[in-house]
């Protein structure tokens, strides 16, 4: 018997009974809350491990309930609203941030068709033909939460933090959206379950040792590698995480956009930030790492029995945790970028690279579709011509030449009297006169008390 996982199609969605929908909604909500609590502890533990210290270890077993306790304490703290705050918008901002954070998981597939209380249903809240666009729309709306919180606080640092944050999120959302385009082109669909299905190549491999049929890799992280790299970088920028955590650069902006927030409203932003991180990890796992499907060597076991029904949840969560580990690792290792460097990376490196990659991919797809026609030769000729033009017209880099020693000495001679003392031009540091005096005064150490050593 073949345990082939039954992929849901778009027709499978929208037929659930109301209580099943309710169960799914509550389950997704609870999963996100638990994942957030877990991620906070995961991050603190891993960063502590990397810094060779124990990390939180007091509350609960091995300190794993610390984030739960912190979360329970936060709403009971005093709520401070600045006098200059715009009350309505000040209240609205955390609501928008929190709501938008939860939307993404509505279209994330956790597994194939499963049976819940006798109903065959996909392990996914819902799916639409434009599911990935729903995710993008939710992220673009969540920027409002940040911008409005910065503005409504009526204070300078939050305003600057909000502006910075929104500029960052808008710029990196462009790069992120473009990196997903390659996935659309390869998968031929924008629904998340469809994209996971399109990456299922490995699962149906003809498992035969004597007549080995090597399968092409099916994960889009490998097939569209440049897109995956760009997605991973822009995901870090999109979630305001280190090394791109400029909105909360505490040395420049106090706490960024949430400086004036306290108590429950602060908790909402905190929650939204961590959920955003989980969101991009889940989307990355779905679009590039095969979603809920079991990774390659395991997928060969018994015609992909490990893809069957609820197993999908394990692989999906495992992939999300690996993604999250990447985020934490980056935070523990890399220093923060300067703002202009960061913007240059987004607009001048990621964006053009992405456009060129999409063009190349389109060329490859066109040649694949018409293997015999003239189109193939047109595409190849076009690539050659563009490459030649680029080689010939590439601007030469002209840096300022370093002045010679003679020039420098000449400049030195022209300095007016009383100028600040300059170091020697050959960069050979002369011995300090004070050092010589000290060595002259120092008596040789008495070792062992023997007279011979003293005289040496």
């Amino acid at each position, binding site marked *: 018997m073949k345990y082939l996982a039954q992929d849901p199609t778009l027709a499978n*969605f*929208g037929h659930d009974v109301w209580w099943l929908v309710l169960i799914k909604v509550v389950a997704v909500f609870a999963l996100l809350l638990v994942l957030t609590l877990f991620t906070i502890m995961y991050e603190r533990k891993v960063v502590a491990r990397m810094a060779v210290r124990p990390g939180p270890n007091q509350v609960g077993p091995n300190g794993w309930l610390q984030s739960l306790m912190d979360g329970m304490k936060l709403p009971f703290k005093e709520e401070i609203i600045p006098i*200059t705050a*715009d009350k309505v*918008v000040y209240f609205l901002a955390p609501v928008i941030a929190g709501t938008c954070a939860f939307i993404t998981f509505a279209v994330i597939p956790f597994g194939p068709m499963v049976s819940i209380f006798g109903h065959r249903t996909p392990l996914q809240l*819902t*799916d*639409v*033909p*434009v599911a990935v*666009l*729903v995710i*993008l*729309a939710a992220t*673009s*709306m969540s*920027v*409002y939460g940040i*911008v*409005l919180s*910065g*503005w409504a606080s*009526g204070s300078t640092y939050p*305003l600057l933090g*909000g*502006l910075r944050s*929104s*500029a960052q999120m*808008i710029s990196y*959302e462009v790069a992120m959206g473009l990196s997903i385009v390659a996935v659309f082109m390869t998968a031929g669909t*924008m629904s998340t379950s469809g994209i996971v299905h399109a990456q299922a190549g490995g699962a149906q491999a003809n498992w035969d040792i004597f007549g080995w049929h090597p399968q092409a890799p099916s994960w889009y992280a490998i097939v569209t590698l440049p897109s995956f790299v760009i997605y991973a970088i822009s995901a870090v920028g999109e979630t305001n995480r280190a090394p791109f955590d400029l909105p909360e650069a505490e040395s420049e902006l106090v706490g960024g956009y949430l400086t004036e927030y306290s108590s429950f409203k602060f908790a909402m932003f905190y929650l939204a930030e961590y959920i955003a991180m989980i969101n991009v990890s889940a989307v990355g796992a779905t679009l590039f790492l095969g979603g809920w499907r079991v990774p390659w060597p395991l997928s060969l076991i018994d015609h992909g029995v490990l893809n069957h029904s609820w197993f999908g949840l394990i692989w999906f969560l495992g992939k999300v945790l690996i993604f999250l580990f990447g985020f934490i690792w980056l935070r523990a290792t890399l220093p923060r970028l300067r703002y202009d460097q960061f913007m240059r990376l987004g607009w001048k490196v990621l964006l053009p690279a992405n456009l060129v990659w999409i063009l190349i991919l389109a060329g490859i797809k066109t040649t694949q579709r018409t293997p015999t026609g003239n189109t193939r030769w047109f595409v190849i000729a076009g690539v050659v011509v563009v490459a030649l033009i680029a080689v010939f017209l590439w601007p030469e880099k002209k840096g300022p030449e370093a002045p010679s020693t003679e020039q420098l000495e000449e400049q030195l001679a022209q300095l*007016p*009297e*009383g*100028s*600040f003392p*300059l170091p020697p031009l050959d960069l050979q540091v002369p011995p300090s006169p004070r050092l010589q005096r000290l060595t002259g005064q120092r008596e040789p150490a008495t070792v062992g008390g023997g007279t011979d050593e003293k005289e040496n």
Partner: protein
Amino acid sequence: MSHSILAAAAGQMGTGEKVFFWIFGPLALIGAIGMVWARNAVHSALFLVLTMLSLGVFYVLQAGPFIGMVQIIVYTGAIMMLFLFVLMLVGRDSSDALIETLRGQRTAAILIGLGFAGLVCTAIARAMGSVSAKGLDAANQANGGNVQGIAALLFTKYVFAFEVTSALLITAAVGAMILAHVERRRENRLSQVDLMKARFAPGNYPGPKPGPGVYATSDSVATPALLPDGTFADRSVSKILPTRELSGAESAPKGTER
């Protein structure tokens, strides 16, 4: 959401669709009216966001999920965000002035608005009156889906109009950049070497300026540091800070010591 999409795709007016319409219709109207009536520019922009969001929902309800999402991503997420960006920098308390600078401006605006609305409505009515609707099902099935249908039209029949529009938008963006961007001439810009020379020239102290004074009675940035001879160090206080002394009420104990 998918419920209503499927219902609409099947050509029925489902209950879900009606419910959503009667929720989002009034919201869209409130947004439109609020946008005109709000005194604060940022509130006005937020009302417009509400209207655009409701429009996006309407598109989705009308079985156009792609255009609905694009409406939310592009208009609500990008364009209105840029509007808000500019408005936030203008200042919080700048409300609209209600004084008419042109006489009869309001009456003229109402008349022209009504006229334009009438014109658009008649044009649409005349154009659509003679069209026999095929239905969305047939249109969607021709290319295997709503998104695919839009893609096919956009990149075959309307590709020229599409490209011309994008060229127009790029021209506008570049034009705005040229108008707003002031490039400093390369020769006027001081190089690092020049800056260093100026810094170490005689008469200029190259080190940092002294910090403000920190004393038991005051640690404000406006407190000047004291030199060894007891005089104030002038450069320890920023020039832009107004000199200020505490009034009697301000220096009196605040009652916090009890």
